Protein backbone atom coordinates (compact mmCIF):
# COMPACT_ATOMS: atom_id res chain seq x y z
CA UNK A 1 0.00 0.00 0.00
CA UNK A 2 0.99 3.61 -0.57
CA UNK A 3 1.77 5.61 2.55
CA UNK A 4 1.96 9.40 2.58
CA UNK A 5 4.37 10.63 5.21
CA UNK A 6 4.98 14.23 6.24
CA UNK A 7 8.23 14.90 8.06
CA UNK A 8 9.24 18.03 9.95
CA UNK A 9 12.72 18.77 8.62
CA UNK A 10 15.40 21.29 9.51
CA UNK A 11 19.03 21.57 8.46
CA UNK A 12 20.74 24.33 10.50
CA UNK A 13 23.39 24.80 7.79
CA UNK A 14 20.82 25.50 5.05
CA UNK A 15 17.41 26.33 6.47
CA UNK A 16 16.31 29.42 8.33
CA UNK A 17 13.13 27.71 9.58
CA UNK A 18 11.88 24.12 9.92
CA UNK A 19 9.63 22.97 7.05
CA UNK A 20 7.40 20.02 6.16
CA UNK A 21 8.64 17.53 3.55
CA UNK A 22 6.25 15.00 2.01
CA UNK A 23 7.16 11.54 0.77
CA UNK A 24 5.15 8.69 -0.70
CA UNK A 25 6.41 5.25 0.22
CA UNK A 26 5.37 1.68 -0.57
CA UNK A 27 4.82 -0.08 2.74
CA UNK A 28 3.12 -3.12 4.22
CA UNK A 29 0.60 -2.63 7.04
CA UNK A 30 2.88 -4.65 9.33
CA UNK A 31 5.91 -2.46 8.58
CA UNK A 32 7.10 -0.21 11.38
CA UNK A 33 7.20 3.56 10.96
CA UNK A 34 10.95 3.21 11.39
CA UNK A 35 11.04 0.99 8.26
CA UNK A 36 9.31 3.78 6.33
CA UNK A 37 11.93 6.29 7.50
CA UNK A 38 14.77 3.90 6.63
CA UNK A 39 13.27 3.38 3.18
CA UNK A 40 13.12 7.14 2.55
CA UNK A 41 16.71 7.56 3.69
CA UNK A 42 17.89 4.62 1.58
CA UNK A 43 15.99 5.23 -1.66
CA UNK A 44 14.58 8.78 -1.78
CA UNK A 45 16.58 11.27 0.27
CA UNK A 46 19.83 10.29 1.95
CA UNK A 47 19.99 13.58 3.83
CA UNK A 48 17.03 12.67 6.09
CA UNK A 49 18.43 12.46 9.61
CA UNK A 50 17.07 10.45 12.52
CA UNK A 51 18.40 8.33 15.38
CA UNK A 52 17.99 4.59 15.53
CA UNK A 53 20.03 1.85 17.09
CA UNK A 54 18.52 -1.48 18.14
CA UNK A 55 15.20 -0.93 16.31
CA UNK A 56 13.44 -3.27 18.78
CA UNK A 57 12.09 -0.93 21.44
CA UNK A 58 14.94 -1.39 23.91
CA UNK A 59 17.59 1.26 23.26
CA UNK A 60 15.21 4.22 23.31
CA UNK A 61 16.88 6.09 20.41
CA UNK A 62 13.95 6.66 18.07
CA UNK A 63 11.29 8.32 20.19
CA UNK A 64 9.44 10.72 17.86
CA UNK A 65 6.16 12.60 17.72
CA UNK A 66 4.14 10.36 15.37
CA UNK A 67 0.68 11.62 14.45
CA UNK A 68 0.80 13.97 17.43
CA UNK A 69 1.76 11.38 20.04
CA UNK A 70 5.16 10.50 21.48
CA UNK A 71 6.04 6.95 20.43
CA UNK A 72 8.97 4.80 19.41
CA UNK A 73 9.16 4.61 15.60
CA UNK A 74 10.35 1.01 15.97
CA UNK A 75 7.32 -0.05 18.02
CA UNK A 76 4.48 1.56 16.08
CA UNK A 77 3.25 -0.18 12.92
CA UNK A 78 1.93 1.49 9.79
CA UNK A 79 -1.46 -0.16 10.36
CA UNK A 80 -1.64 1.48 13.83
CA UNK A 81 -1.33 5.00 12.40
CA UNK A 82 -2.94 4.70 8.95
CA UNK A 83 -1.89 5.81 5.48
CA UNK A 84 -1.26 9.43 6.43
CA UNK A 85 1.63 9.74 8.82
CA UNK A 86 3.05 12.91 10.34
CA UNK A 87 6.44 12.72 12.03
CA UNK A 88 8.06 15.47 14.11
CA UNK A 89 11.07 15.62 16.45
CA UNK A 90 10.42 15.46 20.21
CA UNK A 91 9.11 18.71 21.68
CA UNK A 92 10.94 20.68 24.34
CA UNK A 93 14.48 19.68 23.34
CA UNK A 94 16.61 21.63 20.82
CA UNK A 95 16.59 20.17 17.31
CA UNK A 96 20.06 19.32 15.94
CA UNK A 97 18.89 18.27 12.49
CA UNK A 98 15.59 16.94 11.12
CA UNK A 99 14.28 14.39 13.66
CA UNK A 100 17.40 14.38 15.84
CA UNK A 101 17.16 16.36 19.08
CA UNK A 102 19.88 17.29 21.55
CA UNK A 103 19.39 14.84 24.44
CA UNK A 104 22.02 16.51 26.66
CA UNK A 105 19.51 18.62 28.70
CA UNK A 106 17.54 15.42 29.29
CA UNK A 107 20.56 13.41 30.43
CA UNK A 108 21.71 16.31 32.63
CA UNK A 109 18.43 15.95 34.59
CA UNK A 110 18.97 12.19 34.68
CA UNK A 111 22.45 12.57 36.17
CA UNK A 112 21.20 15.14 38.70
CA UNK A 113 19.21 12.53 40.66
CA UNK A 114 22.31 10.31 41.20
CA UNK A 115 21.23 7.30 39.12
CA UNK A 116 23.58 4.75 40.66
CA UNK A 117 23.69 2.51 43.73
CA UNK A 118 24.78 4.41 46.84
CA UNK A 119 25.89 2.02 49.54
CA UNK A 120 29.00 2.59 51.66
CA UNK A 121 28.97 -0.86 53.23
CA UNK A 122 31.58 -3.21 51.72
CA UNK A 123 29.90 -5.57 49.25
CA UNK A 124 29.47 -9.15 50.50
CA UNK A 125 31.49 -12.01 49.06
CA UNK A 126 29.15 -12.78 46.15
CA UNK A 127 26.43 -10.15 45.67
CA UNK A 128 23.98 -7.98 47.61
CA UNK A 129 21.00 -10.29 48.06
CA UNK A 130 17.45 -9.02 48.10
CA UNK A 131 14.08 -10.66 48.77
CA UNK A 132 11.63 -11.16 45.92
CA UNK A 133 9.19 -8.74 47.62
CA UNK A 134 11.85 -6.03 48.00
CA UNK A 135 12.77 -6.40 44.33
CA UNK A 136 9.12 -6.19 43.27
CA UNK A 137 8.75 -2.85 45.11
CA UNK A 138 10.53 -0.94 42.33
CA UNK A 139 10.12 -3.40 39.45
CA UNK A 140 7.90 -1.03 37.46
CA UNK A 141 10.49 1.72 37.26
CA UNK A 142 13.35 -0.59 36.23
CA UNK A 143 11.65 -0.85 32.82
CA UNK A 144 12.60 2.71 31.78
CA UNK A 145 14.77 2.91 28.65
CA UNK A 146 15.47 6.68 28.85
CA UNK A 147 13.88 7.40 25.47
CA UNK A 148 12.61 10.83 26.72
CA UNK A 149 9.09 10.23 25.39
CA UNK A 150 7.58 11.03 28.81
CA UNK A 151 9.61 14.13 29.65
CA UNK A 152 9.05 15.66 26.20
CA UNK A 153 5.29 15.03 26.42
CA UNK A 154 4.99 16.86 29.73
CA UNK A 155 3.40 20.34 29.56
CA UNK A 156 5.13 21.32 32.81
CA UNK A 157 8.46 20.57 31.12
CA UNK A 158 7.48 22.50 27.99
CA UNK A 159 6.54 25.49 30.12
CA UNK A 160 9.68 25.39 32.22
CA UNK A 161 12.67 23.26 31.33
CA UNK A 162 14.18 23.65 34.78
CA UNK A 163 11.69 20.94 35.87
CA UNK A 164 13.60 17.71 36.47
CA UNK A 165 10.99 15.82 34.42
CA UNK A 166 9.17 12.49 34.72
CA UNK A 167 11.98 10.30 33.36
CA UNK A 168 14.47 11.49 35.99
CA UNK A 169 11.88 10.97 38.75
CA UNK A 170 11.20 7.43 37.49
CA UNK A 171 14.93 6.73 37.64
CA UNK A 172 15.12 8.22 41.14
CA UNK A 173 12.16 6.04 42.17
CA UNK A 174 14.07 2.98 40.98
CA UNK A 175 16.84 3.66 43.53
CA UNK A 176 14.83 5.33 46.32
CA UNK A 177 12.69 2.22 46.83
CA UNK A 178 15.57 -0.24 46.41
CA UNK A 179 16.42 -1.56 49.89
CA UNK A 180 20.07 -2.17 48.87
CA UNK A 181 20.51 1.56 48.32
CA UNK A 182 21.28 4.07 51.09
CA UNK A 183 21.00 7.33 49.14
CA UNK A 184 17.22 7.73 49.35
CA UNK A 185 17.27 10.76 51.66
CA UNK A 186 19.78 12.59 49.44
CA UNK A 187 17.64 11.96 46.35
CA UNK A 188 14.43 12.90 48.16
CA UNK A 189 16.06 16.18 49.24
CA UNK A 190 17.02 16.88 45.61
CA UNK A 191 13.50 16.12 44.37
CA UNK A 192 11.90 18.17 47.16
CA UNK A 193 13.33 21.34 45.64
CA UNK A 194 10.90 23.56 43.75
CA UNK A 195 12.22 22.21 40.41
CA UNK A 196 11.67 18.66 41.60
CA UNK A 197 8.48 16.61 41.90
CA UNK A 198 6.24 19.59 42.78
CA UNK A 199 6.12 20.76 39.17
CA UNK A 200 4.21 17.57 38.34
CA UNK A 201 0.54 18.52 38.01
CA UNK A 202 -0.61 14.93 37.36
CA UNK A 203 -1.49 15.62 33.72
CA UNK A 204 -0.82 11.95 32.80
CA UNK A 205 0.72 12.75 29.36
CA UNK A 206 3.81 10.84 30.48
CA UNK A 207 1.78 7.71 31.19
CA UNK A 208 0.22 7.85 27.72
CA UNK A 209 3.59 8.47 26.07
CA UNK A 210 5.63 5.76 27.81
CA UNK A 211 6.41 2.95 25.32
CA UNK A 212 7.22 0.68 28.26
CA UNK A 213 3.82 1.26 29.86
CA UNK A 214 5.27 2.44 33.15
CA UNK A 215 2.69 4.00 35.48
CA UNK A 216 4.80 7.15 35.75
CA UNK A 217 2.35 9.45 37.51
CA UNK A 218 1.89 6.81 40.19
CA UNK A 219 5.68 6.56 40.68
CA UNK A 220 5.89 10.37 40.99
CA UNK A 221 3.04 10.23 43.52
CA UNK A 222 4.95 7.66 45.57
CA UNK A 223 8.03 9.90 45.57
CA UNK A 224 5.91 12.89 46.70
CA UNK A 225 4.49 10.78 49.52
CA UNK A 226 7.99 9.60 50.51
CA UNK A 227 9.16 13.23 50.69
CA UNK A 228 6.18 14.09 52.91
CA UNK A 229 6.57 11.14 55.28
CA UNK A 230 10.31 10.43 54.92
CA UNK A 231 9.31 6.76 54.67
CA UNK A 232 10.64 4.71 51.73
CA UNK A 233 9.34 1.23 52.57
Amino acid sequence: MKVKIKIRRFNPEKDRKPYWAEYTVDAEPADRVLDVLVQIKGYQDGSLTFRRSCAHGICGSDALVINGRNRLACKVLVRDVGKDIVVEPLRGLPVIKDLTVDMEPFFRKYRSILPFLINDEPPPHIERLQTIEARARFDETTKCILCAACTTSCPSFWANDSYVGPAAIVQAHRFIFDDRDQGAQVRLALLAESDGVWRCRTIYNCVEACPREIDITRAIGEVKKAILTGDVD
Partner: protein
Amino acid sequence: MRTDATSARRVQNAGKFEVTMWFFMRISGVLLLLLGAFGLVYANLVGGYGNLDAGAQMRWSFFPISFHVQSSDVEVAPNFSNPFWNAYAFLLIGFAAAHAFNGLRSILRDYVRNPLLLQWLQAFLLVLWIFMLVAAIYVIFVFSNQ
Protein backbone atom coordinates in the same frame (compact mmCIF):
# COMPACT_ATOMS: atom_id res chain seq x y z
CA MET B 1 28.32 13.22 44.79
CA ARG B 2 28.57 16.73 46.27
CA THR B 3 26.48 17.44 49.33
CA ASP B 4 28.36 20.01 51.39
CA ALA B 5 26.59 21.32 54.49
CA THR B 6 25.36 24.68 53.16
CA SER B 7 23.93 23.43 49.89
CA ALA B 8 22.24 20.48 51.63
CA ARG B 9 20.59 22.82 54.13
CA ARG B 10 19.43 25.22 51.40
CA VAL B 11 17.91 22.32 49.49
CA GLN B 12 16.05 21.16 52.58
CA ASN B 13 14.61 24.60 53.36
CA ALA B 14 13.32 25.12 49.84
CA GLY B 15 11.95 21.58 49.85
CA LYS B 16 10.30 22.00 53.24
CA PHE B 17 8.17 24.91 52.02
CA GLU B 18 7.16 23.22 48.78
CA VAL B 19 6.24 19.95 50.50
CA THR B 20 4.22 21.88 53.11
CA MET B 21 2.35 23.78 50.41
CA TRP B 22 1.74 20.59 48.42
CA PHE B 23 0.24 18.91 51.49
CA PHE B 24 -1.73 22.06 52.34
CA MET B 25 -3.26 22.09 48.84
CA ARG B 26 -4.50 18.51 49.32
CA ILE B 27 -5.93 19.16 52.78
CA SER B 28 -7.46 22.56 52.01
CA GLY B 29 -9.05 21.24 48.81
CA VAL B 30 -10.87 18.53 50.76
CA LEU B 31 -11.69 20.88 53.65
CA LEU B 32 -13.21 23.45 51.28
CA LEU B 33 -15.61 20.86 49.93
CA LEU B 34 -16.51 19.61 53.42
CA LEU B 35 -17.00 23.14 54.79
CA GLY B 36 -19.17 24.08 51.82
CA ALA B 37 -21.22 20.89 52.02
CA PHE B 38 -21.75 21.13 55.79
CA GLY B 39 -22.85 24.79 55.52
CA LEU B 40 -25.32 23.92 52.79
CA VAL B 41 -26.84 20.97 54.66
CA TYR B 42 -27.02 22.87 57.96
CA ALA B 43 -28.66 25.93 56.38
CA ASN B 44 -31.38 23.73 54.90
CA LEU B 45 -31.94 21.86 58.19
CA VAL B 46 -32.43 25.03 60.27
CA GLY B 47 -35.16 26.47 58.09
CA GLY B 48 -33.57 27.33 54.82
CA TYR B 49 -35.31 24.47 52.99
CA GLY B 50 -38.08 25.89 50.80
CA ASN B 51 -37.12 29.45 51.72
CA LEU B 52 -33.70 29.84 50.12
CA ASP B 53 -33.53 30.03 46.34
CA ALA B 54 -30.71 28.29 44.48
CA GLY B 55 -28.62 31.48 44.30
CA ALA B 56 -28.87 32.12 48.02
CA GLN B 57 -27.96 28.48 48.73
CA MET B 58 -24.82 28.78 46.62
CA ARG B 59 -23.83 32.15 48.08
CA TRP B 60 -24.35 30.73 51.54
CA SER B 61 -22.35 27.53 50.97
CA PHE B 62 -19.32 29.33 49.64
CA PHE B 63 -19.45 32.41 51.83
CA PRO B 64 -21.81 31.87 54.80
CA ILE B 65 -22.50 35.44 55.97
CA SER B 66 -25.96 36.54 57.00
CA PHE B 67 -26.71 39.10 54.30
CA HIS B 68 -26.26 36.41 51.69
CA VAL B 69 -29.60 34.96 52.85
CA GLN B 70 -31.38 38.25 53.56
CA SER B 71 -32.58 38.50 50.00
CA SER B 72 -34.57 35.31 50.51
CA ASP B 73 -37.72 34.71 52.44
CA VAL B 74 -36.15 33.47 55.67
CA GLU B 75 -35.55 34.63 59.25
CA VAL B 76 -31.88 35.61 59.45
CA ALA B 77 -31.27 35.67 63.18
CA PRO B 78 -30.52 33.61 65.19
CA ASN B 79 -29.55 30.68 62.99
CA PHE B 80 -27.62 32.49 60.31
CA SER B 81 -25.99 35.42 62.07
CA ASN B 82 -23.83 34.48 65.04
CA PRO B 83 -20.14 34.17 66.00
CA PHE B 84 -20.06 30.51 64.93
CA TRP B 85 -20.97 31.36 61.34
CA ASN B 86 -18.65 34.38 61.39
CA ALA B 87 -15.74 32.12 62.32
CA TYR B 88 -16.93 29.51 59.84
CA ALA B 89 -17.08 32.05 57.00
CA PHE B 90 -13.63 33.31 57.87
CA LEU B 91 -12.19 29.78 57.85
CA LEU B 92 -13.79 29.05 54.50
CA ILE B 93 -12.53 32.25 52.90
CA GLY B 94 -9.12 31.80 54.54
CA PHE B 95 -8.69 28.29 53.12
CA ALA B 96 -10.10 29.28 49.72
CA ALA B 97 -7.83 32.32 49.42
CA ALA B 98 -4.69 30.47 50.53
CA HIS B 99 -5.52 27.58 48.20
CA ALA B 100 -6.21 29.87 45.25
CA PHE B 101 -3.22 32.14 45.76
CA ASN B 102 -0.84 29.22 46.14
CA GLY B 103 -2.27 27.87 42.88
CA LEU B 104 -1.54 31.20 41.20
CA ARG B 105 1.97 31.14 42.67
CA SER B 106 2.54 27.69 41.14
CA ILE B 107 1.35 28.92 37.75
CA LEU B 108 3.67 31.93 37.94
CA ARG B 109 6.59 29.66 38.84
CA ASP B 110 5.80 27.48 35.84
CA TYR B 111 5.59 30.22 33.27
CA VAL B 112 7.61 33.25 34.44
CA ARG B 113 11.25 32.65 33.57
CA ASN B 114 12.75 36.00 34.59
CA PRO B 115 13.69 35.66 38.30
CA LEU B 116 13.30 39.38 39.06
CA LEU B 117 9.88 39.57 37.41
CA LEU B 118 8.90 36.38 39.26
CA GLN B 119 9.87 37.95 42.60
CA TRP B 120 7.85 41.08 41.85
CA LEU B 121 4.80 39.11 40.76
CA GLN B 122 5.01 36.88 43.84
CA ALA B 123 5.26 39.94 46.07
CA PHE B 124 2.22 41.38 44.27
CA LEU B 125 0.33 38.14 44.91
CA LEU B 126 1.24 38.30 48.60
CA VAL B 127 -0.11 41.87 48.83
CA LEU B 128 -3.32 40.84 47.04
CA TRP B 129 -3.73 37.86 49.38
CA ILE B 130 -3.30 40.01 52.51
CA PHE B 131 -5.73 42.58 51.08
CA MET B 132 -8.26 39.82 50.49
CA LEU B 133 -7.94 38.53 54.07
CA VAL B 134 -8.37 42.06 55.49
CA ALA B 135 -11.39 42.62 53.23
CA ALA B 136 -12.85 39.28 54.38
CA ILE B 137 -12.36 40.21 58.05
CA TYR B 138 -14.09 43.56 57.45
CA VAL B 139 -17.03 42.06 55.55
CA ILE B 140 -17.55 39.15 57.97
CA PHE B 141 -16.99 40.77 61.35
CA VAL B 142 -17.89 44.44 60.79
CA PHE B 143 -20.02 44.95 57.70
CA SER B 144 -22.38 41.97 58.03
CA ASN B 145 -22.95 42.57 61.75
CA GLN B 146 -24.11 46.17 61.29
